[in-house]
């Protein structure tokens, strides 16, 4: 908006306007919001690391400790946290897989591998590892 004040103009020294970035700059564009959420998702990645460490500790202390851990995990707060966390981690993985081709140029036999293949191979690897883990946990 205009401020109709007499400007502090010195002859031959025009004052350059330096608009300041709003604190809510990240809400102004979808790509900025996506970026900020992507960055925040690392917090949830960190949370899952901590969660798994807690799980490992619980298991190492025996059956009772493990059951206590499971009971704690079933509490509404932790369930909600893990659910939200899962969504963010999936978001994290998807955004990074899609960006991966921009960050690396992979060459096989002298020809550049198209970006789509790099993304696809990441998803494939994720699917395989998930399948394997599921089989280990739920199968035998």
């Amino acid at each position, binding site marked *: 908006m*205009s401020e109709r004040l007499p400007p502090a103009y010195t002859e031959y020294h025009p004052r*350059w306007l330096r608009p300041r970035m709003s604190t809510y700059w990240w809400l102004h564009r979808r790509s900025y919001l996506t*970026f900020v959420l992507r960055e925040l998702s690392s917090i949830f990645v960190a949370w899952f690391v901590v969660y798994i460490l807690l799980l490992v500790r619980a298991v190492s202390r025996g059956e009772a400790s493990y059951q206590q851990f499971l009971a704690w995990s079933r509490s509404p707060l932790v369930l909600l946290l893990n659910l939200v966390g899962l969504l963010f981690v999936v978001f994290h993985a998807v955004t990074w897989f899609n960006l991966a081709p921009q960050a690396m140029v992979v060459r096989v036999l*002298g020809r*550049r591998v198209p970006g789509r293949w790099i993304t696809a191979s990441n998803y494939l690897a994720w699917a395989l590892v998930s399948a394997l883990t599921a089989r280990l946990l739920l199968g035998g």
Partner: protein
Amino acid sequence: MADRITLQVARYRPEEEAGVTYQEYEVPCPKDWVVLDGLNFVKDQLDGTLSYRWSCRMGICGSCGMTVNGEPKLTCATFLADYAPGPVRVEPLRNFPVIRDLVVEIGDFMRKLTRVKPWVIRAEEKPLSEGEYRQTPEEMDEYKQFSMCINCMLCYAACPIYGLDPKFIGPAAIALAQRYNLDTRDEGAPERLEILSEHEGIWGCTFVGDCSVVCPKNVDPAGAIQRYKLSAALESLKSFVMPRGSR
């Protein structure tokens, strides 16, 4: 198909006002007119006091970058009809100080260009009598994309990091450095690494990625920066592990 459209143009007259005002102009909107044609119509027929930069009107000189409906665009390559029925908001390029109306001050960018040493650096020059440095088309493909930058600075306007911290060296400068680093004729990568691995160099970038999205020449500066981060990190590791080694 409307044949007129309204332009809402940001005005800043430092000798008269302390801030921005918006002025509306109604211009014709034939299907092959770009925003620049609209601005020229304003200047020629309606209001001679409007100041803006333009030159080639074919998207190669990089002069006419402005913010159109919130997006950084080359006004010579943005069609008015795409915004029908309008209005179309035309503002100066973001993240740069505004001198007047739609003209921004790009001195910061020009100094950064010089800082990254965008010329061929060699220990020994080959004499002309020995002919050209051989470079295969494949070797040229490595850096070709990064040599396409027209210095239009739309990437700087899109980069929130540059907006928050003007000391960040910025997408185009880093892409240009990479253009030389990856050129087989150049040997200056270590020199440039010293400059670019500063805090406001490549490490200032958090891969928002908007720079590559707005680039009108598909230079992909975001890609250049991430790849550079990888090679810079490897260089650091190498010099740590083998201090007197490969260098």
